[in-house]
């Protein structure tokens, strides 16, 4: 393994030695051109079956209305927003890896950015299901959510955080898809040139837009990629900030807190990195990608998870501290109710999953051995969902007026819709693995000496 200081090609230590353009292309495109492993069919079947649950749940929802869900007074925001925030948060790691790490010239992002960005796009798609369907009449959602001239001469209220959210999330979805697609173009050209069937070649050819790898094109392409990364960076930070405004702009105890934006953004990155690891650890084993996704990658991702996890845990501590320090009886009651009230088991499970378990990541052994790391990530996935549950439900179910206190119980349809979106996610992800290169081939090529002219001082 090369030492960083002696490295002739930036980032070469993130690629197993002995690779050249041909071997990289063969290995990654071979995942698509070769036969799918048996586990792919099993995984796809599971995902596709769960997707049917989503379709049934949504059909019944549209047929009956949102009364099939457990939301009622006083908890008018239930699973829909919990799951929305959870999915959107997961997406953030993909943008962090593809954009922010690109700006910081972290070459280890190269082998994970494609899959992480795919995760972003699919997670945002899953998140979008909830705000659209919680309206009960999704075909009318367009004029409730988007400003367009209509016969009623109505406009959405631009002073409302919920409309900010529509703008933030739809921009995020659009820019993520554009960035992902632009990144795919050179690899689609590779797939076009390697396709054996004329139909497949035409399809890849169409989507590769006739890319031919011209040096002039690469120059503009790299400029555009860097600019898109620069635009995505403030965008991704704004998205979860705006999501946190949905809560923070209100006057509900436990929501009306200035710590919310940074705490939500850190939580999003934390949840997202845990999900990237949850997806990549099995994918790496199934497709034998150890040369590209090395121990260093896994270790680095675990470190980011640990750091963001500590920020999130600091947020929990601050919430508890301000419950006392604010000397506000409603804030104080809110935090006591979280710790001792009817939802206390959820709160303590959250502290265990997000505060205690990730401390294992201080150990290098845990960070680099896949099974314990996978277990930690599963705990984080659960913990981050619990966090949103605790924030949404405990604040609403007992606020200022004890006369209007109540409990929230999710129904079977709440659960089936939530689990169903996991089916949507898995189905999309399995299809992605099968038809698109799950590692950016051209960016991995750039980690080999052949892609660098000798005497070249422009790195990155």
């Amino acid at each position, binding site marked *: 393994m090369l030492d960083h200081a002696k490295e002739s090609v930036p980032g070469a230590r993130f690629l197993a030695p002995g690779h050249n353009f041909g071997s990289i292309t063969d290995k990654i495109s071979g995942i698509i051109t070769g036969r799918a492993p048996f586990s792919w069919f099993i995984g796809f079947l599971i995902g596709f079956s769960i997707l049917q649950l989503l379709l049934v749940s949504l059909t019944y929802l549209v047929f009956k209305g949102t009364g099939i869900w457990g939301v009622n007074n006083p908890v008018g925001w239930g699973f829909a927003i919990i799951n929305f925030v959870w999915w959107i948060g997961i997406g953030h790691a993909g943008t962090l890896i593809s954009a922010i790490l690109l700006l910081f010239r972290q070459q280890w992002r190269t082998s994970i950015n494609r899959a992480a960005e795919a995760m972003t796009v699919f997670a945002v798609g899953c998140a979008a299901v909830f705000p659209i369907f919680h309206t009960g009449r999704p075909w009318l959602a367009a004029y409730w959510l988007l400003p367009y001239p209509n016969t009623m001469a109505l406009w959405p209220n631009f002073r409302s955080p919920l*409309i900010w959210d529509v703008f933030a999330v739809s921009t995020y979805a659009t820019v993520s898809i554009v960035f992902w697609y632009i990144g795919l173009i050179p690899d689609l050209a*590779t797939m076009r*040139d390697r396709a054996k069937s004329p139909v497949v070649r035409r399809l890849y050819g169409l989507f590769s*837009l006739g890319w031919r790898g011209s040096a002039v094109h690469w120059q503009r392409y790299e400029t555009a990629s860097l600019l898109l990364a620069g635009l995505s960076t403030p965008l991704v930070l704004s998205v979860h900030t705006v999501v946190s405004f949905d809560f923070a702009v209100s006057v509900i105890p436990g929501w009306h807190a200035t710590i919310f934006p940074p705490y939500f953004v850190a939580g999003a990155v934390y949840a997202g990195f845990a999900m990237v690891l949850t997806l990549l650890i099995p994918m790496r084993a199934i497709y034998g990608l150890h040369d590209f996704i090395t121990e260093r990658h896994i270790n680095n991702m675990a470190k980011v998870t640990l750091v963001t996890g500590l920020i999130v845990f600091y947020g929990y501590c601050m919430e508890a501290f301000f419950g006392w320090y604010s000397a506000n009886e409603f804030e104080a009651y809110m935090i006591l109710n979280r710790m001792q009230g009817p939802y206390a088991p959820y709160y303590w499970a959250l502290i265990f999953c997000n505060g205690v378990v990730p401390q294992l990541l201080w150990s290098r052994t845990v960070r680099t051995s896949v099974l314990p790391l996978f277990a930690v990530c599963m705990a984080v996935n659960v913990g981050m969902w619990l966090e949103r549950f605790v924030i949404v439900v405990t604040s609403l179910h007992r606020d200022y007026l004890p006369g209007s206190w109540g409990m929230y119980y999710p129904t079977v349809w709440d659960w089936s819709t939530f689990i169903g979106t996991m089916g949507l996610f898995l189905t999309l992800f399995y299809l992605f693995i099968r038809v698109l290169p799950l590692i950016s081939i051209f*960016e991995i090529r750039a980690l080999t000496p052949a892609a660098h002219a000798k005497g070249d001082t422009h790195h990155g």
Partner: protein
Amino acid sequence: MAEIDQPAALYGLMAEFTDATDLTRAATTVYADGYRQIDAFTPAPVHGLAEAMGYDDRRVQKFTFAGGLLGMIGGFGLCYWTMVIDYPLNIGGRPLNSWPAFIIPTFETTILLAALLTAGSMLVLNGLPQLYHPVFNVGAFRATASSTGFFLCIESTDPKFDLARTRALLEGLHPKAISEVDA
């Protein structure tokens, strides 16, 4: 060879090299020799290659800026026009032009249009999507340009282009192969 008798049907001459170092050296030499209608093709971005052939296009950045400016004005204009002019709502006597609240939609539209114009202008300036291009007529290019091949092409439209002399120049650069590109 038929192509020699019909110069109109010739797009250019293409030479294949082994790696980025050889290709960049060749591109530098060809540019220094006075050729301007040239292009290199690589499976991965090679830094300094376009610059070696005298290309330095900075128009994409300008489109990004224009998109951002358009998005910013458009986004704020949308908020202002709907909330102040077309549909004024008095909420607790607060000012109609509550601009701090409009900053967030404005920010998002700024990013949205800047990103769309960045991606769009990159593709349009590159002439993509393009359904046909002569370089794909070369068998080796079709087979390896997107995986392992490094190619340099001198187009026949270049004023200095002369089949025999240009071929001699390329041969002096020790390529793996030279092929004529049909238009």
